[in-house]
């Protein structure tokens, strides 16, 4: 998987360079800048994750999010996804780590998709642009979509 990504990236950089040196240099500078700004945040998230894993009893995570957590697990995951504000580059490594602990895919889907589409903490931003009622409706609609996604993930991936 990784090497395909590197090949695609290298090809695109070459095409870009061939089209315009100036723009390619601009893009690479931008990439370095963005990378730098994100790196520290990513490290912080992973440190927090490492701390949580070492201090929370593993049984607690299994019990609430594991294979036998049932509906409770889905609601925990949806709830955590909805209230968290976390960029994807921090969330997906976290999901992969949870996967390593044996948390099933549908729980990870519940967390990641509600994280991206439902905002409890960021609700004031929704409200500012949409007004209270439409903002609420938008989040409610997203919640319905999340539930359907979770059901289908459970159906396709089962408990794995």
């Amino acid at each position, binding site marked *: 998987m990784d090497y395909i990504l590197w090949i695609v990236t290298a090809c695109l950089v070459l095409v870009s360079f061939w089209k315009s040196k100036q723009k390619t240099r601009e893009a690479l500078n931008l990439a370095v800048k963005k990378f730098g700004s994100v790196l520290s945040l990513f490290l912080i998230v992973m440190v927090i994750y490492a701390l949580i894993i070492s201090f929370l009893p593993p049984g607690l995570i299994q019990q609430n999010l594991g294979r036998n957590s049932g509906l409770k697990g889905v609601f925990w995951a949806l709830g955590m996804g909805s209230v968290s504000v976390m960029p994807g580059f921090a969330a997906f490594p976290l*999901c992969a780590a949870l996967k390593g602990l044996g948390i099933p895919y549908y729980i990870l889907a519940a967390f990641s998709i509600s994280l991206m589409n439902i905002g409890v903490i960021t609700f004031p931003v929704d409200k500012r642009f949409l007004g209270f009622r439409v903002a609420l409706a938008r989040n409610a609609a997203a919640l319905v979509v999340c539930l359907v996604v979770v059901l289908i993930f459970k159906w396709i991936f089962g408990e794995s």
Partner: protein
Amino acid sequence: MQTGRAFYDVCLYMLRILPCSFILIALLEVWIKPETVVEHLGENCGWQGNFWVMVLAGFSIGGLYVAYPMAQTLQRKGASLRIIFSYLAFTGILRIPMTLFEITFLGLPFTLTRLLVALPLFLLSGILFGTVLTRKNYRLKD
């Protein structure tokens, strides 16, 4: 000790993936200006609007703080409410950088399933919001 090891592994893994993702994101940003895409989303954009709104959402970065000003721009350009609400929903599921991360960490089957299920549903919710709110002469706040 085990946690330290896991931390080290995931960081190493990220370093293999991250540089590519960021170079791709930067290339997209330099070469494809959102303004060009917005031009395709004005009044009477027809069915192609669905395509362009996906492109626009795919290239969007940052969260709501970027999405809402863009939605206002779309409104000023005369885009329909259906397009605007589809755009807002799609920014949550289609962002290319995010999707790249997802594929690398959770695998292609995970991402494809998510997209194939969520995309039609959000398209539907966009149509629903568009139809109901257009009837009420709703507009985004400035």
